[in-house]
């Protein structure tokens, strides 16, 4: 037994199953993510990684088992309230096209009825944090580049100072240079804001050098879980395939074998 004084895990999956049309897309997963950790959730497409992420803010409901966030069962929470407390940057960013950048960033504070002045101050702070000029606040999303939009999405997710940040494929369709700078920015904000960050990504290259823990899913189950370096030892075909996957393969292997060199 652990001592009761120890802080609960940021996220705890307890024997969780999600079924779609009779198939288990998340299959009896038990998993704990400690507070303050930076975790990448990866796997081939259809492996169930996004579903695992979306269980946390109840965008998906578990058919069996429990998901706890900071010790609270999400099934007992009011979904909008739960979600306002968790930073979420979705696949494709999903900025509201009819709202300005400032309004997009201030969306959650607005939902939480923060005062206009407090919201404006927070928007300015976040624009600085994601390194966008302050006058971008008046722009509309259509006037942003892909990288800029991703940064605004990140700022929106952090606006209400959540303790937990969920990122679903944050690098989407960005060009390599932008990916690197965004990954650095995420990593920096993770440390700065004392966040627990769970990030879904299908591409290990950007994550490996920055995260502390990589979880590999396959067919709804977890097939590998450990430090980036430990993955090399895995003999599971899904992990092997992932490591052997396309794109600058040599770099990846180098990063896996000698993370200290890349860092």
């Amino acid at each position, binding site marked *: 037994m652990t001592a009761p004084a120890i802080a609960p895990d940021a996220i705890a999956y307890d024997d969780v199953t999600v079924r779609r049309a009779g198939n288990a897309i998340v299959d009896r997963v038990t998993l704990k993510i400690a507070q303050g950790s930076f975790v990448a959730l990866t796997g081939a497409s259809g492996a169930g990684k996004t579903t695992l992420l979306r269980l946390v*803010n109840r965008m998906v409901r578990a058919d069996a088992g429990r998901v706890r966030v900071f010790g609270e069962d999400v099934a007992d929470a009011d979904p909008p309230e739960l979600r306002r407390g968790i930073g979420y940057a979705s696949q494709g960013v*999903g900025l509201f096209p009819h709202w300005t950048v400032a309004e997009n960033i201030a969306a959650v504070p607005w939902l939480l009825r923060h005062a206009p002045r407090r919201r404006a101050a927070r928007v300015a702070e976040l624009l600085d944090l994601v390194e966008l000029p302050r006058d971008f606040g008046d722009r509309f999303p259509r006037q942003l580049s892909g990288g800029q939009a991703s940064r605004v999405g990140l700022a929106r997710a952090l606006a209400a100072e959540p303790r937990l940040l969920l990122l679903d494929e944050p690098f989407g369709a960005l060009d390599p240079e932008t990916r690197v700078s965004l990954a650095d920015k995420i990593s920096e904000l993770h440390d700065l804001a004392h966040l627990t960050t769970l990030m879904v990504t299908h591409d290990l290259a950007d994550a490996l050098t920055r995260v502390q823990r990589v979880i590999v899913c396959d067919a709804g189950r977890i097939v590998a879980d450990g430090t980036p370096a430990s993955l090399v030892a895995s003999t599971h075909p899904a992990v092997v395939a992932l490591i052997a996957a396309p794109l600058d393969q040599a770099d990846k292997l180098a990063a896996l074998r000698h993370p200290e060199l890349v860092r």
Partner: protein
Amino acid sequence: MLPDRLAAHLGVSAAAIALAIVVAVPLVMLLVARPALRGWVLAGAAVIQTVPALALLALFYPLLLVIGEVTQRVAGFGIPALGLLPSLLALALYALLPLLRGGVDGLASVPPETLDAADGIGMTRRQRLIQVELPLAAPIVMGGLRVAAVWTIGAATLATTVGQKSLGDLIFAGLQIEDWSLVVTGCLAAAFLAIIVDMALWRIETGLGERAWGKCLLGLGLLVVLVVGVTGWYWSKRAPVAEGERPVVIGAKSFSEQYILAELIAARLRAQGVPVTIRSGLGSVIAFRALAAGDIDIYVDYTGTLWDSALGNKMPAPRGVMLATLTAELPKRHKVEIAASLGFENAYALAMKRADADRLGIETLADLATAAPRLRMATDTEFQSRLEWRALQAGYGLKFARLTSYTPTLMVRALQSGEADVITAFSSDGRIAADDLKLLADPRGALPAYDAVLLIGPRRPELKARLAGLAGKIPVEAMREANWQVDRDTDKRTVQQAAAWLEARAK
């Protein structure tokens, strides 16, 4: 005539669109929640759209009559089957498709990642709908609304045929008496309304898109001022009707003779201190049903028409038998009474240009039968479904090279321009003498008699005594002349002037 028609037109259009919106909003919500239903409901709305508006309006009349009968029996009250109600329902149904399409397509156009973000940051369903879905769907939703509004304002001109006052009154009357200024006035007024309303809605649409609430309010204000102002002005101008004294409603089908006779009856009743209103432009079958149902109180119909449409006889009978049977049967079957026989006949006949007939040696329908395979026949729109046509087939076996149907006015034009050789004609038509047409004789007596009779509905039996003086007072020559006064192109008289002229001869 224009201001009150404009007000009534705007009123019925606005009410129909409002009703359609009230129906469409929950339907759109249902379709968004259950995409499986989408195909069915939209296909249903599309089918309604394929029914011509004119037919849709006409169909609501018998439907409401049946419903009215049921409510009368079950709950003890009837519902009006003529005028506002059928217009409202048919026009609303007609406006439904663009509204549903706009709503469904608009909401479906919101990108899924935007919806996911809205949920993910913790918006409630309601917040998501109001803050994200509606503003993003607005251009397409408003596009649908604009289409619906313009269609409805256009289609409302057809509400005239079910007895609803509208700008169609001007158009139908103008087409009939060939008063093109009347037709153009009606069309322009409808177009003007449509443009103003479309502009106001466009303002709301751009306002919503830009989140410029001032623009939205301006557009909304323009609509409210237009609808409330015009209809309100109209109501305030209406002559107050004494309690319990419903004016006598005089019906008229959509041709000159009917307009003139309605005015003549109106003048006679007014002279006796009876308040009256006229509902003109009614479809032929609708007029009789409206009388039987008490929606109108009096109108002029013809024995041959009634023989077929009211009594359901498929073969004609001799003149005397027809009149006697109708006089006896109509009160029993429909609670409708023949008050008087006016003294003239408006029978169907076939007519040719005199020069053509003489050249081909055609005097009678029997002569025509021989020449018919080389001739083109133009009929009015209802003739080919009438018993006269069957009677002509049975009596003479007419087979034409081509058979086309037109509105009566255009049918005459077709004959004049040489697009048709033979047309249907009415024996009281003023054009017969004026255009030098030859009516072909009917030696076998195939065509039935069409004596004009004054019909009185169940609600105002006292009208029989009030109008008894009209019996036999209108000879066919006088009727032809009165018709010609309004139908001719030069030295045209108004319907009221022709009615006054005829009244002077009917004393």
